[in-house]
């Protein structure tokens, strides 16, 4: 067993699971490293096992695909071909002349350092939600759309009784539907884009009628069953409340993406679930020196990055949803397995996945051009609106750094204002700082993907080794049903 090549896969969402199963099926030993207590990632996030949910699928879709992935993982775990390290938070991946070392922090408190050695790695690190600032967006009760969904799927809890779901992008529909089904009154779904603009891209969209039907199904359920008003070409301009959200003001947008005067109206709510699209997690790839294409990891047809031994799949290589992540993960797993076993990968073995990848990339490129934040959203950002939530940097400071202090790039703005220097390392404020300063958006570049205790850094080289090659301590997911 130990002479088999070893692949580390980081992230147990759709891309990581697909890569794991594809590589394990080809005789490669895989260590699947994931921060969550259970496999699934954000898309297939499960209720905590202690909650004993008998119908978790009520909050999910594509449940059959999940069951297939879960069964496949269970088979590989039982066969000993795959080791699943849950609750392992990867902070760095290091490349040596021969092989890869994955550095992680173990357990929810993230205090113990552990390492996993492998011959190659697939980065399936997923993405996170982009939220652009507006007055009041730091009030408790304002959450990201994906965050509301994650808390609902994982903890079976709701943030309040009456929600507004707002922003832009295809995620808003399932979030609003999920909240409504779970008992929240959804007072409005506020979408800044004009869904009619999708018609301009009918060719790319028609290639995937299933995806279109999925969106239409959500919209119909929202409108008919839950009676949620859809406000297209509207935006949230302000969230109100003292210590907690109690209302939002929304307004209509004109064709140029500016707020139309006289259209403001206030909607009472205790929850605002808001999002403006997604961003790829690129920390680990950037630390490895992988070339980025804009804000995503650049990959070739085999899902290889430009760094030997490093593959990437799923949202990390560009936002495109779970189906694209599955296709990319499958190709990455097949390609990595072939190359690790000294074979030349044969693209004919993943023709179906490649076809699906091409169609889905076209589909999401079309969606992206429609679901863009309103062109003039920064005009709604008042000078006292916090841009950087961690360091409490207001918009006026960011603007002054450019206008008065002559900052010409995001890095200089950061040095002058501290925007992006806090706990989240600019993940939340990065796009806003870029837009307010007129600089191109750049991925947050951090030496470590998460905070690391000094003791762990000091103990480098003396970490506990987990996973392959011998005697994995966490060989089976302890949360298996």
């Amino acid at each position, binding site marked *: 067993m130990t002479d088999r090549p070893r692949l580390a896969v980081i992230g147990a969402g759709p891309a990581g699971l697909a890569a794991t199963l594809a590589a394990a099926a080809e005789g490669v030993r895989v260590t699947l490293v994931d921060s969550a207590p259970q496999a699934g990632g954000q898309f297939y996030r499960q209720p905590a096992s202690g909650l004993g949910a008998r119908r978790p699928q009520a909050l999910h879709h594509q449940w059959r695909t999940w069951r297939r992935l879960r069964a496949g993982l269970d088979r590989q775990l039982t066969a000993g071909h795959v080791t699943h390290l849950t609750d392992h938070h990867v902070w760095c991946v290091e490349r040596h002349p021969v092989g890869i070392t994955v550095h992680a922090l173990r357990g929810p408190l993230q205090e113990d350092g552990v390492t996993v050695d492998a011959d190659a790695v697939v980065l399936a690190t997923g993405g996170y939600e982009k939220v652009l600032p507006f007055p009041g967006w730091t009030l*408790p009760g304002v959450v990201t759309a994906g965050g509301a969904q994650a808390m609902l799927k994982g903890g079976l809890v709701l943030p309040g009784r009456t929600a507004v779901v707002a922003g832009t992008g295809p995620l808003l529909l399932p979030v609003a539907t999920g909240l409504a089904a779970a008992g929240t009154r959804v007072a409005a779904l506020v979408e800044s884009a004009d869904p009619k603009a999708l018609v301009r891209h009918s060719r790319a969209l028609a290639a995937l009628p299933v995806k279109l039907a999925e969106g239409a199904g959500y919209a119909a359920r929202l409108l008919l069953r839950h009676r949620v008003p859809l406000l297209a070409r509207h935006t949230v301009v302000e969230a109100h409340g003292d210590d*907690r959200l109690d209302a939002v003001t929304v307004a209509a947008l004109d064709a140029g993406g500016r707020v139309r005067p006289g259209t403001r109206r206030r909607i009472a709510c205790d929850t605002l679930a808001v999002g403006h699209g997604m961003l790829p997690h690129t920390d680990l790839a950037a630390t490895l020196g992988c070339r980025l294409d804009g804000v995503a990891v650049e990959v070739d047809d085999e899902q290889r990055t430009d760094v030997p031994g490093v593959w990437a799949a799923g949202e990390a290589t560009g936002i495109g949803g779970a189906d694209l992540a599955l296709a990319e993960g499958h190709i990455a797993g097949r390609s990595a397995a072939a190359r690790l076993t000294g074979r030349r990968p044969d693209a004919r073995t993943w023709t179906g996945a490649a076809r699906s990848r091409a169609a889905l990339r076209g589909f999401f490129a079309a969606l992206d051009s429609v679901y863009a934040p309103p062109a003039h959203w920064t005009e709604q950002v008042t000078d006292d609106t916090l841009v950087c939530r961690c360091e409490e940097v207001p918009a006026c400071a960011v603007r002054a750094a450019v206008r008065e202090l002559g900052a010409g790039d995001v890095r200089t703005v950061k040095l002058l204002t501290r925007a992006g220097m806090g706990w989240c390392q600019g993940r939340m404020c990065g796009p806003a700082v870029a837009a307010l300063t007129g600089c191109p958006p750049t991925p947050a570049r951090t030496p470590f993907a998460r905070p690391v205790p000094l003791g762990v850094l000091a103990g480098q080289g003396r970490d506990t080794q987990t996973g392959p090659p011998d005697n994995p301590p966490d060989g089976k997911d302890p949360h298996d049903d």
Partner: protein
Amino acid sequence: MNPLELTDARPGPAFTVTFDGREIDALPGQTVAAALWAAGVTSWRGTRGAGRPRGVFCGIGVCFDCLVTVNGRPNQRACLVPARPGDAIRTQDGTGHDD
């Protein structure tokens, strides 16, 4: 309908934690953030600068807005840390190291 009914959840027995000294119920498997939400609590941090209230924002461990003090340890991400029976959860003010 609530989320527990919707998913036909049969959780293990609830247990007690405290939030700023007040007893609240939590269900097995819930994170600290989920237990607080279930108890109707949405803010548990005062920012270092203006002392403004914060709670869950991203819900997936990215934003660090939901930092909280658990059993005397500050800066725990409430959306990631599981609630355990008897946990003493406290609002975190500033850096959490002042008290």
